[in-house]
């Protein structure tokens, strides 16, 4: 096998410029995970089927597994690590935890990125709009309800800090038979 000639490029990710040497065939996902060491974005299928690799490219959601890293030069890339901005944990991230929208967490980064894009496009989505907006992201654990509720909660503007008041809306007392 002939070694591939690497190409010098600069990636702009989460507000930082990274000078890198890229294989021309490297996906944006692979470059961000392996060259920049930002492993929050996940590879679940390498085929744009699961959404675990979702990033924002100039604000638009993108399956980074199926996009060449070199194509991202000169454009602004946002990954899950950049979602909180200056916050420790952003409101959408807090809502995901408070609404039990996170179990194994592997789909979570992509889900958060897709939800961020959705809320920018449509700050007050209906449940159906949320469900359609997130249908490019597979989750096998949660049944999606906590995720949908988290997005609704952010749209409603009320996300308390972690460790404070209960937010799980389904807290009706369980049926007690005995």
């Amino acid at each position, binding site marked *: *096998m002939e070694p591939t000639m690497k190409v010098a490029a600069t990636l702009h990710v989460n507000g930082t410029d990274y000078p890198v040497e890229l294989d021309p065939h490297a996906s944006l996902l692979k470059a961000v995970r*392996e060259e920049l060491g930002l492993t*929050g*974005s*996940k*590879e*679940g*299928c*390498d*085929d744009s*089927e*699961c959404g675990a690799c979702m990033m924002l490219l100039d604000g638009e959601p993108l399956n980074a597994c199926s996009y060449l890293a070199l194509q991202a030069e000169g454009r602004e890339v946002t*990954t*899950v*690590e950049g979602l*909180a901005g200056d916050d420790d*944990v952003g409101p959408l*991230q*807090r809502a*995901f*935890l*408070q609404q*039990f929208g*996170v*179990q*194994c*967490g*592997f*789909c979570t*980064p992509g889900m*958060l990125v897709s939800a961020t894009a959705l809320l920018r496009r449509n700050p007050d989505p209906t449940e159906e709009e*949320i*469900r*359609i907006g*997130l*249908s490019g*992201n*597979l*989750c*096998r*654990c*949660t*049944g*999606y*309800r*906590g*995720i949908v509720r988290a997005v609704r909660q952010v749209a409603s503007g009320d996300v308390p800090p*972690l*460790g*404070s*008041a*209960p*937010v*799980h809306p*389904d*807290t009706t007392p*369980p*049926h007690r*038979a*005995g």
Partner: protein
Amino acid sequence: MATVETAPAGFVRQDGKEKVTGTGRYTADLTFTGMAHAKFRYADHSHAKILKIDTSKAKALPGVVAVLTQDDLPDVRYGGFVQDRYLFARNTVRFEGEIVAGVVGVTEEIAAEAARLIEVEYEPLPVVTDFVAAMEPGATLIHPDLPSYDKDENIVADGNTMAYHTIVKGDAETAMAGADVVVKSHYVSDASQGVPIEPRAVVAQWQGDKVTIWSSTQVPYAARAGVAQTLQVPEANVRVVVPLLGGGFGAKCDLHFEGQVAALARAAQRPVRLVLSREEEFTIIAQRREGIAMDFETGVTRDGRLVARRAKLVLDKGAYCGEGGFLGQMAAMHACGPYQIDHISVEAFLNYTNNQPSGSVRAPTAPQVCWGLEQHMDEVAAAIGMDPVDLRRRTLIEEGAEGPTRQVFDKVGVRDTLERAVEMIGYGRELPDDEAIGVAVGWWPCMPAPSGAYVQMNGDGSATIVTGAQENGSGAVMAMPIFVGQELGIDPNDVSILYQDTDVAPWDMGSCGSQTTFNSGRAILAAAQEVREQLLEAAAEQLEADRDDLELAGGVARVKGSPDRSVAITDLVGEIGTVHGKGSGEVLDAPTGDTGGCVGRLGNETFLAPQLITQAAHVKVDRATGVVRVLKVAAAHDSGRILNRAGADGQVLGGVVMGVGLALSEGTMLDDQGRQRNPHLLDYKLLTCSDTPEIEVDWIEYDSVGPRGTKGVGEPPQVPTAGAIANAISKVIGRHVRRLPMTPERVWEAARG
């Protein structure tokens, strides 16, 4: 009854912050200095003798640092109940995902190219992919040497039948002859998959004679034992660490590639990482949900008493045993179901084929068998002109009733679950003629197993749990601080958890069998109680009070009723010096029954503390296309006491959604060589966010035998979903769909008759 304390308001899982910020590390996120990459060479035939393996071209490729075949490893087979497999194929390949050789390259691309350059000569053998035909006389044997393999003493093997089982009660033949009505049904389920969103990954690094293996496994101790056995090294030299685990659903149980990667890392003399592609995650793992062919026969009186049940189940084991040797017996118990039946004769055949091996996937065998049995129960009800819910009301088990092997049940809430589910779904109301409601009932046992844990108090009044329990994402381990916080009178947010490391914590069965709260929770509680005793004894001395008059609450030890007579836990810890406890608790015994007539007893012939479930599904069917839309599922569960309502609800929501997928779209399709035709997420269709129905969850809570009155939670949610949907579909189209998954084509064909 005493109030069971549950999760405090605002309790958030401790691994949550790392998961939502992207800073948490899963196995494939790990890199090490000098790390190289593993790839496997897979079988070129589904069944063939290996005549020759030539690795010379692969070894000559620049950048290749190791190439291994089974000739380089100890001559040791592994397997849970039957030891039938080598890490790399030796002499014979038996399914498309069989690993013939492993290579390590300094890049993934070089490793992939080297794997391609390995030259293998084969003599093809007849391929057995039909798991029913596999047991016909004269069928090609998948394992001709099966009689001489090491195996569990209770395994009854013959020909391609790796394990044969019966569940027997009374005299089913005579009773059947005396029944008012006899109903026979035939159902077939395709194989399906667990599909965690994280593909499996393994990293191994040797330092001297010791190896550390980071693996996306649900069962680190089983992985450790498997590495030790297959590489012939002491368990003490094998450390398995599980980084964050991106889902499992059973599919990440058993020894899975840790042995091969450890061997490759030793040969390469550097850390080696294996990350599976999505296609490999479908085709090479030895852990899918098995196909089952089911024949049910039930004799019933006109007033709805089940006088006899006969059933024959044939299960597709695939090429190797793995941990799935018990599947036949488990399926046989599910062919009885949580019903009172006077006489029973069920037999199950777990047959080898040249298909992907089967193993535990979330409630192994139960959803498929429940799908068939619950449709059969609706057919029985129709045959005697009775409403199917009424038939279940008359026949479900209750306290004091006898099970399939005459175990006598304690208080169980299955009838309550039935009433609650039909209430939530609005059973019996008028619906448009393309909509209907179906009901199904299922069960799942609790698995008694040893476990061990440590709990230590820290100087600042916080505490640390050290447990061998494994967290697959469900939150079962993440809920353990609630137990410890309650025992020690401190905030669960001040209790940290150390898990995931076989060198640190005592043995645990792992994240499988819905057993974490039931067994690991028991051990952690016992360890916390030791700490509690130490604190209370020291406090009794300091406060000059009777130990029995003291309680731990709010970070202090205090005299009950005199809160001003108190001492801070931090002061007690300072005084005692080190405060730590260890615990295991007592492993519960399986219930006794009349099991003497049963063949192939592997421990599932009675069900300890069965979890009971009724689900009711409201569906809409397009008769012209066969497309089914599930509008709502009502799920009522008896899992004993619920400690963390939101976490438990999460298990049901996820399980029901998996169940809807199993019902309608998730099926592995095979070609005539046993190769998967749909090993990708576009053609193996999981439910998306916009496909999911409304789901209403409720819990029937009676005290059970697990810690704090609990049972398991995680597996049952998937058990009856497909059956409930099937019964609803049949009400719309007038016929039962006899093949799972119930795809539009199959529904359309069934509707045409």
